[in-house]
Structures are given as C-alpha cells and as structure tokens.
C-alpha cells in the first residue's frame, strides 16, 4: 500500500467553484478555462502515489500550485474535489478531531520560513509535537533532545530561535518534525530560504538522516538541482497540473513536453545521468571456456578487436585482444583462460555518474566495462558514446572530433581552452 495516494485532486479558490470545476474538467489550460471567473485553480487533477520510504519531490515554479498541493496532504487546506489517502485512510472526509489525530500520529511538516515559535526555546520548539500529544514533560524533553542530537543542535537546546542562524533554525524545524515520530514528512520549500552553501549542507544532512530513518518524504521545491539531488522520484508541476512524474534520469532523458525539456535544459546532466543510461551493449562477449577459434570468428564477424570475457556465473573477468586470440590459436589452446587481462580496461558500476566517467574513459584502452551489482557485465562505454551523450546536452560546447582516440576527454566537456 502506498504511504500517500492522491487521486484527481483539485483545489479552486474563490467563488463559483462549481462552474470552474466544470470548465477545468475538459483539460483546457488554467488561464483559458477560468477566464472571466472569480476563481483561481491552484491544483488541477493531481494524481500520484508516494511509496513508503521514498523521497518524492514536487517541483515547479512559484504559482504552480505546489504549496497548495502539499497543504492538502495533511488537511491544512480542504480539497475542492478528489481524494487523499494516508496509509489507506481517506483524509478529505475526516472530522476535525480525527484529522488532528492523524496529523499527530502520521504526518509532520517542515516549513519554508521555519515557523519556529520565537517565544519558546529550541528544545521547547523541538518538543512541540509531543506537547500537543500530551506527553509528560520528562519524556518530551528526552525525545526532543534526541531529535536535536540527530540534527547536531543539542548544545543549543536552551537558546531562543533568534540566536540561531537560518540553517540552524531549519534544522530545529526538522528536529521538531522528527521528534514527532511520524512516518511521513512534508517539507514545503524547506531549504529555499537558505544560502546555497548552507542549503547543500542541510540537503546532505537530510540524505544522511533519511538513509538511517527511512521516512516517507514529500519535498516541495522550485530548485531543479535540489529536486534531482534529493528526489527518488520527481513530479513536475506547471500551472496547477502535474506534467510529468519520474526519476531524475527519466525526466532528463525523456521529458514529457517542451516545458519540462526547457526546464531541465540547464541541468548539469553529467551529474544526473549514470553509466547505465549511456552504456551500450558489448559487441563481443564470450565465456572464458570458449575456444580461440570461436573467438576469432566472433571478432571477425563483429569487426572488433577485443573480446569481453565472462566467467561461469557471468561475472566479468577481463578482456582478450585480437593479437592474443591469434596467439592462443597458434599455441593450440582450448580456451581463452590464461590470456584474460584486467589491465587494459577500466570497470565502473551502473550508478556511476557520467561526470565521474571521464578519467576512466581516458585511461581505458578499450571501452569502459559497466558492471551490475553482482559483478556481471551490463554494458560498455566507448569514448565516442560518452561524447555523444554529452553532445545531446550541451550542443554548443562539444568541439568537432577528428579522431576520437586523440581527444582529451576530460577537457571535452567544457571549452577547449
């Protein structure tokens, strides 16, 4: 069961919402559909599911409806139509008391401008959810301290929020949500108000904590790089509608429409794309027990000069070149065993970022071997493939190629200078 399930969710502000809903149902763009009506549609027909333990990022520019969307997930705003299920419980029809209970037990939230209470100490802020839940003071203190320790602010427990920097205040906001002990965390532009360097730091901290705690996180942001960095999956919103949902790679390599394509145009793909998305099939892959005669024929047929050799469990062993196959043939060997070398080819894993492939590609005599989690050969990356993967991202920056073998691969990404 998904942790959160949203079905045909709408939020229309203003009056004459019935008429607005009727017009929106046809799928016309928001501004056209509502022209002349005293109503604004913030969220139109949102559908998605968030799996337990994933970071689901909702990304969009301001006015795209993402903040309204997240506020319907914990009932701070009532949807105009549609369904929100939290752990299977329909939230939209809950009575106020039941809704409050659900918030206490299942969902907590982190806010853009931290929303700490200025008249309470850091510790009292961190323990707020527990105070609401009616826990005894000693236990409250202990659990709030635990949460502050997690975000590295235990020493600041007795200070007031104004003594803290922005980054620290948001860590208190995070501690407050963590102390609540809920499985679901809503984060509304949580890091947007922070300086870039601090933002990076708290993003790292969130990822660290997430690796440990495995919360279900819905993260709202307008920053694509943040979305790509944090999100297991990303929903792109525009004018109230979700236009695409997918992993960072899916959105980069297969944008649903021009808007998304334009949005992702500026992203540094080499950090998002991984080896598995640019690799191709190895031309000649043979088992180590195959004889040199077969190998020679395979090389001839494929017009290549190197054999990728795998072992009995398909694990990658190394390469054998044309010359060595010929030598084995002359020496009358029955298998390639003894000729396999790991010297001439570099190996990387499937999730290696493209940015980290350049050095390997430059130093590897033959196309780099990409291995899966079990050490099996998933594919190879010839230099030219790496370059063309880059070319599709930054068409103006890749210099013309004469002979691929001579190109300085590390420099190829940017200006030739």
């Amino acid at each position, binding site marked *: 069961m998904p942790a959160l399930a949203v079905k045909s969710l709408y939020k229309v502000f203003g009056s004459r919402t019935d008429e607005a809903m009727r017009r929106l149902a046809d799928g016309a763009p928001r501004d056209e559909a509502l022209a002349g009506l005293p109503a604004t549609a913030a969220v139109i027909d949102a559908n998605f599911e968030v799996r337990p333990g994933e970071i689901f990022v909702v990304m969009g520019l301001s006015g795209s409806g993402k903040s309204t969307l997240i506020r319907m997930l914990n009932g701070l705003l009532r949807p105009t139509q549609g369904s929100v299920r939290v752990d299977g419980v329909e939230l939209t029809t809950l009575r106020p008391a039941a809704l409050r209970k659900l918030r206490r037990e299942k969902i*907590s939230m982190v806010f853009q401008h931290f*929303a700490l209470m200025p008249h309470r100490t850091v510790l009292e802020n961190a323990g*707020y959810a527990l105070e609401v839940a009616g826990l005894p003071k000693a236990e409250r203190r202990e659990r709030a301290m635990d949460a502050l320790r997690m975000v590295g602010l235990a020493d600041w427990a007795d200070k007031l929020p104004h003594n803290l920097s922005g980054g620290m205040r948001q860590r208190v906001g995070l501690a407050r949500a963590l102390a609540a002990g809920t499985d679901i965390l809503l984060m509304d532009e949580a890091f947007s108000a922070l300086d870039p360097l601090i933002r990076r730091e708290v993003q790292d901290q969130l990822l660290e904590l997430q690796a440990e705690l495995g919360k279900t996180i819905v993260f709202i942001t307008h920053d694509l790089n943040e979305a790509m960095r944090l999100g297991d999956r990303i929903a792109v919103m525009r004018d109230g509608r979700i236009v695409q949902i997918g992993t960072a790679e899916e959105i980069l390599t297969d944008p649903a429409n021009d808007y998304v394509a334009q949005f992702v145009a500026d992203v540094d793909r080499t950090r998002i794309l991984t080896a598995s998305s640019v690799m191709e099939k190895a031309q000649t892959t043979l088992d180590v027990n195959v004889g040199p005669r077969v190998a020679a024929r395979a090389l001839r047929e494929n017009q290549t000069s190197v054999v990728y050799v795998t072992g009995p469990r398909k694990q990658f062993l190394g390469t054998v070149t044309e010359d060595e196959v010929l030598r084995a043939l002359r020496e009358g060997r029955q298998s390639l065993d003894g000729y396999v070398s790991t010297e001439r080819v570099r190996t990387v894993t499937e999730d290696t970022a493209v940015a980290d492939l350049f050095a390997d590609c430059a130093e590897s005599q033959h196309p780099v071997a990409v291995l899966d989690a079990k050490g099996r050969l998933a594919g190879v990356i010839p230099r030219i493939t790496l370059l063309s993967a880059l070319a599709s991202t930054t068409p103006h920056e890749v210099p013309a190629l004469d002979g691929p073998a001579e190109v300085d691969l590390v420099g190829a990404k940017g200006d030739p200078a």
Partner: protein
Amino acid sequence: MSQHESPLDGWLPRVPLGTWTESAVDWATGTLGPAFDAIAAVVDALVRPLDDLLTGVPAVVVVLVLAGLGWWLRGWKFGLGTAVGLGLVAGMPYWEETMSTLAQVLVASALALVLAIPLGVFIAENRRASAVARPVLDLMQTMPAFVYLIPAIFFFGIGTVPGVLATLVFSMPPGVRLTELGLRQVDKEIVQAAESFGAPPWMVLLRTKLPLALPTIMTGVNQVIMLALSMVVIAGMVGAGGLGDVIMFALSQVEVGSGFEGGIAVVVLAVVLDRLTDSVGERFPSARAQRLARQAA
C-alpha cells in the same frame, strides 16, 4: 427632540431618529430596570472600595508604591520622575480627587478589557462577526463623548456609576481592534505549523496566537487606559466626582488656577499610566523574544 425645521421639508419624509432613540431608551429603562440596577451594584462594588483604599492611605505611600513600580519596570530615572510628578500633585489641593479619578479609570478600563479582549479574539476568528463589529466600533469611537452621558444618566442616574459605564463604552473600541489586529498579524506559517502537528484550536489560540499577539494587545490595553482617562474627566458632567468635578467647576466659574491644577493632575496620571502599561507589555517573554528576533533580522 429637535424643534428645528428640516431644510428638506416637503421633499423627503422626516426621519424622527431622535424620537425613536428616546422611546428605545424609555422602553429599556422600564423593562431592563432590574438589570441596570444589578450592573450599577457591581460597578459600585468595584469602584467604591478601590476609591476608599486610594484616598484612605497616606499620599506618601501611594507615591512611593507607584514610583517603586516605575523604577522596577523602567529604571530609576522613570521612578524618580514618577515620584516628582505625583509629589507635585500631592502638593496641590486635589489629591483625593486625583485618586478617585485613578480608581474610576482603573475599574472602567479593567471592565472594558474584560469585554474587549474576548470580543477581539472572537472577531479575529470570525470574518462575518468582524464585518458586523467594525461599523459598531467606528460608531462607538466617533460618537462625541458627551453623548454617552445622556443614556447613562437615564439608566443609572447621577454619580460615579454612570460616569464609569460611559467611560467603559467610550474606551473599549481600541481594545477590541488591537486584539483583532494582533491576532491577525501572527505569522500564518507559525499558526499552520501549530495546526500541522495536530494542536486543537484552543491550544493554537492560547499557546501560539495570543502570546505572539501580546505586544499589539498590550498597545490596545494602553490605548484603553488613555481613552478612559480622557473620558473620566468628561464624566465629571454627570457628577462622577474626581478631577472631572474640579475641572467642570473651574470651567463654570472661570477659575484658571484650579482648572490648571486639575489639568496638570490629569497629565501626570496619564504619563505615569501610559509608561507603566507600556513597559508591562515589553516585559512579557514573548514580546522580548520577538523584539530580539526583529533586531537580529
């Protein structure tokens, strides 16, 4: 009521608003008599003991207590100033009247706040109620102060009680308004944060909204006391006693000297009450925290 010819005679029907008001007041005096008697008894029971206390103890004690309070709340300079100002008043012939006025102001503003703050909370939470309350508050504030005295005499006769009640009505509006304003100005995100953790409305109100609105509400308290002080002098016209009497008498006899003395006593009271209530507001932890937060930002 009015015997004047209306310039619109023959063009528009005469609107006998005055006559209607009179009959409404007549009806109220007849039907609600017992209720008014009860209200009068309560107000009297509050003012009289306080008046007796303030006029009963030696002036030196009152001066020292207020000066000490000023020292504690705002520092030694203000404490000294309070002592000098009140000492001056004590040296003039109207100390007892000043203390009566103080008692009336304190009771009227306390009652006004008891009504105004809950009302302000209510209309801050309820837009429709706010829309209804706003013009009523405008009316209460712009109606010439003297006009309140007329029904007050009808319902409560002559004396301290109608004076205090007219003062109450006149001074209440800023208490309501600033309570509403303060609550509405509380950072929406902070309120949402409280709600998002499942806090029930009363908890959000008492532990989040009110503490954060407190500085503004205290400004309202300060305004209420200042307005009460200005009205309580006017209430001298209905025989409320205190400095109002002094000033009314000086006015009718054209006695510049005693008029000025009464006026100075009012000014001293006003300054002391204003600064004291102001610093009480600043001393709340939430106010201090917010002020520091603003400085840091």
